[in-house]
């Protein structure tokens, strides 16, 4: 049976012989969603982070054959109406990105963190934000997460 799953709420089907293709390359090359980045290919850097059923996952090692029925969200699906997600807005307000290459992965990791723990402590931020930023934007990422957490506090998240 063909594998079906959704990406940013669009149904997609895995073609024959494609089951072993990692999700990252399926997104980048089949769907041309290039926001998720290739950084290491071994699950270390987090540049390829996407959400699978709401949880942040590194997509570079995950074969699409295992995704039957899953809901995938990528950076491109974070602001479907054009209105930025509060985490993206916080990233802009703190002017986080330097080269920018890791930032889609960082944002996806942060969104997932805040969906699970809406007021994370500094320790929880450190424990959950394990993506590499080669440019060293970590202190700003932390500030942006704190800012987004405050926005959350004012406006409880209703979306699951």
């Amino acid at each position, binding site marked *: 049976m063909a594998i079906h799953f959704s990406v940013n709420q669009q149904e997609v089907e895995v073609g024959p012989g494609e089951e072993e293709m990692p999700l990252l390359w399926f997104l980048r090359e089949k769907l041309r969603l290039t926001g998720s980045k290739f950084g290491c290919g071994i699950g270390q850097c987090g540049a390829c982070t996407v959400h699978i059923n709401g949880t942040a996952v590194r997509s570079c090692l995950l074969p699409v054959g295992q995704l039957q029925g899953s809901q995938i969200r990528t950076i491109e699906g974070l602001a479907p109406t054009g209105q930025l997600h509060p985490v993206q807005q916080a990233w802009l307000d703190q002017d986080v990105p330097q080269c*920018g290459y890791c930032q889609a992965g960082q944002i996806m990791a942060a969104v997932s963190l805040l969906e699970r723990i809406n007021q994370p402590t500094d320790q929880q931020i450190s424990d959950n934000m394990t993506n590499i930023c080669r440019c060293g934007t970590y202190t700003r990422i932390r500030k942006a997460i704190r800012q987004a957490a405050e926005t959350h506090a004012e406006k409880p998240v209703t979306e699951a």
Partner: protein
Amino acid sequence: MQNPHRRHFLKISALSAGAMLVSVTLPLRTRSSSAQQPVSPQWCVYVSINRDNSVVMQSPIMEMGQFMRTAGPMILADEMDLDWSLIRFDLNMPTYLTRNRKGDLVYDHAQIGTGGSQTLKNNWTYLRTAGATIRRMMIEEAAERWDCSPERLTARLSQIIDTPTGRKFSYGDLAEKAARRQVDTNKLKLKQPAQFHIMGKNQPAIDARDIVTGAPLFGIDENYANALRVAIDRAPAMGAQIAGYDKKAALAVPGVRQVVEMPHESGPHWPDGETQLRAAGVAVLADSFWAAMRGKDALKTTWKDTHQYAGLNSKAHRETLKALARSDQPGKHLRDDGEVTRALQQADKVLEHCYERSFLAHACMEPLNCIADVRKDSATVVVGHQWPHAAALAVEEIAGIDALKVEVINKRMGGGFGRKGEADYLREAIWLSHKVGQPVQVIWTRENDMERDFFAPAAAVQIRAGVKQGRIHGWHMRHAQTAGEAESHNFPAHLVRDCRIESLAGNEPFPLGTWRGPRQMQQAFAIESMLDELAHAAAADPLAFRLALMEPAKAHPIDYWAADHLDSGRMARCYRSAAEMAGWGRKLEKGEGLGIAGHVTFGTYVAFVLQVHVDDNKQLSLQKAWGAIDCGFAVNPNHIRAQMEGGFIDGLNAALFNEAVIEDSRVQTRNFGQLRWMRMGETPLEIETEIIESDREPTGVGEPPVPPAPAALANAIFAASGLRLRRMPFSEHIRI
């Protein structure tokens, strides 16, 4: 789409009127020379003004995370007196190339290339003059229409205003005719810093929104028509040759189209002299990169080692350098002030220590990649490269196509750090496209990237220094590194009467390249660690000891390409500011310590204080850092702060983790699994920056925050625990 009849771009008018609107002589720096050559500032290539007064601007400078793509337009727009909010940025970045009188390929207009923390400096006068020229054109056009003197008119926020009467023209009204004007360069007036309305204020990066929404900004994201995706199986040992591979198996992978052998290439290179420029490899060309990677795995390539680079071993090399630095083999004397031997004999106390650093990897977050489309007599290269003219030169050399017929399209670089100034990844894509007669996109895996790096050299710096009555008395520094020379001008030279600096080279053919203030970092690590050790030996406070050393405040002339003086007063100011912010001298908890270090890099002064905690089990945590920077006029303060944060973290990462390990000519640190890299949990919670106010011409900020980091960390660890670390990476000696 707008109605084309309404789109009267200044660009078009200007070009139809002849491009030479004004001609001024501006300094032009190419990679190989700093010769003064005349260029024509055809500013209009970057700026188009629409009738409705909106502006479309292309950034004149490349971006690799150092914010130049934003700084360039700020300079131009400020002198033009543009309303920043009316500008739309066109992120397409072609490379404008021309030939100078000698026939060398040079950048036309702005110096788009970036590196050496010189980018801002190289473009400062050019972009300001270009902006002021456009402003003057607007003023003169308005004056003619109103039949009044241009001197009574002012430009403000994309308008020319006649203050006495209150009448106004928008730039959109004036642009088309203004563009045809000839401006007398003597009438150009650059603004005073107090008149800047865009510079000196925090402007967000012009493409920040595209970044946070995942727009395809990088070369690796590009979907070039008909390009085959390429993965290359590269020789794991330097110099190795292909022994055999299973071509059939690779071609059997669905999507794989071709398999091509790529020859090994050696040649002259900076700073290592002669090294491997490109590994031998087998290229797999496919419909997708995923298929190409699977094809590469199917090759099962076998290799035969050659003798050219046999037996290279980084750990052994480090020992060689250390032995060299500690030996009495004379080095090249870069400086020999006073009588260093006698001074050390007279000192109350003499300390002698060696400070060591490993090879540093670049690990740009975006793996190297390049698209090349070499046609019969023209070519297109799409790439993020620090010096894009190198792509045009490579096409000329490899395919015999005139470099001026090469279109080089620049993409935002996912990190550069000197690695993206190398030509290897351009050359292989160009070579392949030329060979197969089709566009190709070569993407490196992380393993390719780390194995085939051009590392920052390893180094060992031995310092013998004395103190007498609380002051430095004699300073003898022997600086050994894989290749290249030390600098001769750094403090405490000029401040210590008897000072000798020697340079030695290990001379083994490790592949080396530029990094982010690498030489400055190893110098600062050695010098600032030794200053600390001397202060303790003299029972002095490390800050007070440094401030006393900097007295009297004086600008010492130096003979150096990036600055003409070294000012002890500016350095002292940075030490003091960082220390004040940190609350230097306050009472700390048990296990906490503050460390201070500073350095002058390419004319920019930086000092940092770092607070760490070390527990009884030698478990280290980095708590907070405070930095002060004097980089002349602060064009975009928030981005200077960002560089202070990121650069300092890069330096901390070098101090703690970054060690490229090479055994038997094979790189062992092949991915982030073997090469640990700093993450959020290891980073200080906060880094605060003070920018010293200044009206001096701006100097670079990309590299200067890096060099002080290792010494600030070593000094803080010592203050917290009494443990003195003199060998990077520190994570071998302390837990983190």
